């Protein structure tokens, strides 16, 4: 490790998680502010300790207004990651880490507040989509339908991946959610047989291959090593953080499907995965648990391949062998229930679970977990990822 500054995660916070439209008693902005304050309290901090905010996906809860609302005396960093839906979740954390490492700020809170009942449901047709002219007249409206095209192509090229393997991702998340009282699907167990009884949304994706649509807020405090040492929480270091995209993805899955042929059936993570491991100085075998952005089960299978946990096309077998299961598998994933079964807060809840694993506080705790991979939204542009570790 060089002597450059290193960024740490000193606090995490969240509100209650509800189904879409479930939080109507207060504004989305208030929900975001509650999450920020909860994360600061977790870090033993107050708004006076904050000098930066970061978010993504055109979060409507603007940093300038958050500063006003919380009475932050001076901001030195405000950043927003362009586009990509949840693809920017780890990117916003990466930008916060970059601000800390470069010395532009000392404490940046990354947040996302999402109340779909106060804006719109993500699983529905929405006006104004870039390149919407090339998808809407054909009835291609929602991310599940769009990413089903990539998943179908990947399964065609790798016919050893079956729909049963999609189901195993969904069942795994549900099992983890049933140990997490904060999960929306807590108390609702699901077997593979139950999974196969549900209807298709967009083949090969069934209802429970698709993430929840949720209301809730999440926040993460990124700060310097010295401030993290003063916090009451376990030291969780950001070993590597990155975001970006291969060519052609900006108008890709959510647009006109013109990403390169060699990369089409992928999560757009091959380039970032290689650089992330190199930057952290670790390899896939070193990762104890992964929190993989699970908007759709098939994208998780592809991510297991691209992040090097199994060979290209080998994700189905990897999952069928029990490798992702808590707590016997060698790589338990999405241990809070993920976005398939805990909540969909654009990946921020997935990132918080990674921090809990490093602190030993997960409801599906991996024994002696020291390194965790976290990804942002997959198969979009940008995508993003982190490797975090317990010191």
């Amino acid at each position, binding site marked *: 490790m060089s002597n450059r500054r290193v960024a740490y995660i000193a606090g995490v916070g969240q509100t209650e998680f509800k189904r879409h439209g479930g939080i109507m008693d207060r504004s989305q902005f208030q929900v975001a502010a509650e999450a920020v304050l909860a994360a600061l309290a977790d870090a033993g901090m107050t708004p006076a300790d904050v000098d930066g905010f970061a978010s993504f996906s055109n979060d409507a809860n603007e940093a300038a207004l958050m500063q006003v609302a919380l009475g932050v005396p001076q901001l030195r960093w405000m950043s927003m990651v362009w586009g990509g839906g949840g693809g920017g979740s780890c990117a916003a954390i990466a930008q916060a880490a970059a601000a800390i490492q470069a010395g532009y700020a000392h404490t940046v809170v990354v947040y996302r507040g999402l109340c779909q009942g106060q804006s719109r449901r993500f*699983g*529905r*047709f929405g006006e104004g989509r870039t*390149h*919407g*002219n*090339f*998808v*809407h*007249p*054909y*009835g*291609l*409206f*929602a991310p*599940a*339908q769009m990413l*089903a*095209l*990539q998943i*179908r*192509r990947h399964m*065609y090229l790798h016919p050893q991946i079956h729909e049963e393997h999609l189901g195993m991702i969904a069942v795994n998340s549900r099992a983890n959610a049933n140990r997490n009282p904060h999960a929306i699907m807590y108390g609702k167990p699901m077997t593979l047989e139950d999974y196969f009884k549900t*209807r*298709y*949304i*967009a*083949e*090969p*994706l069934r209802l429970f291959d698709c993430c929840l649509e949720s209301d809730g807020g999440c926040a993460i405090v990124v700060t310097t090593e010295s401030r993290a040492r003063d916090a009451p929480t376990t030291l969780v270091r950001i070993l590597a953080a990155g975001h970006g995209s291969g*060519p*052609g993805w900006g*108008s890709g899955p959510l*647009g*006109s*499907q*013109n990403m390169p042929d060699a990369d*089409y*059936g992928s999560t757009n993570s091959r380039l970032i995965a290689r650089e992330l491991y190199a930057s952290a100085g670790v390899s896939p075998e070193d990762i104890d648990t992964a929190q993989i952005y699970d908007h759709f089960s098939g994208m998780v299978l592809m991510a297991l391949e691209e992040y090097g946990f199994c060979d290209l096309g080998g994700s189905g077998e990897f999952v069928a062998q029990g490798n992702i299961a808590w707590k016997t598998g060698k790589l338990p994933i999405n241990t809070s229930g993920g976005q398939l079964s805990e909540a969909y807060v654009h990946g921020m809840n997935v990132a918080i679970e990674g921090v809990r694993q490093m602190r030993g506080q997960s409801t599906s705790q991996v024994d002696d977990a020291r390194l965790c991979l976290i990804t942002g939204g997959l198969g979009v542009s940008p995508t993003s990822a982190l490797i975090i570790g317990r010191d």
Partner: protein
Amino acid sequence: MAYFPASMPKPTPNFDDRDFWNTCTKRQLRFQTCADCGEPRHPPGPVCPYCSSFKVRWAEVEGAAVLYTYTVIHHASHEAVAGNLPYVVGVVTFPDLPNVRMVTNVTNINPSLVHIGMHLRLWWDDVGDGTWIPRFSPVDKLPA
């Protein structure tokens, strides 16, 4: 009869793609091509990603296509499609345009028979107001 009801969203052409949709009104399917390096591209955009040229020409395709991937949609994410369920959205490629892929519908076929690699033929769907949408069907099952 248009394939979807009249409430289906129509393209609203913009600076970058209006030439594409204008040629569709003449029932011609043309893709933007760099006038300098000759590489075709889609969706239309102002600059060539291969050589940075702003000069464009338009290459017409005859209408033969191959299915690259598809999904059978069973859920209405817009009320306009509720009566069409299930319907097939496909991505097609064209023999002479290797970098171009187009989202479209595969029609006139039982969805369970759709498969990657199948050969398709272009047909034009009159959705009203002078707008024509390119859709595809199996070669031997073109709509009348």
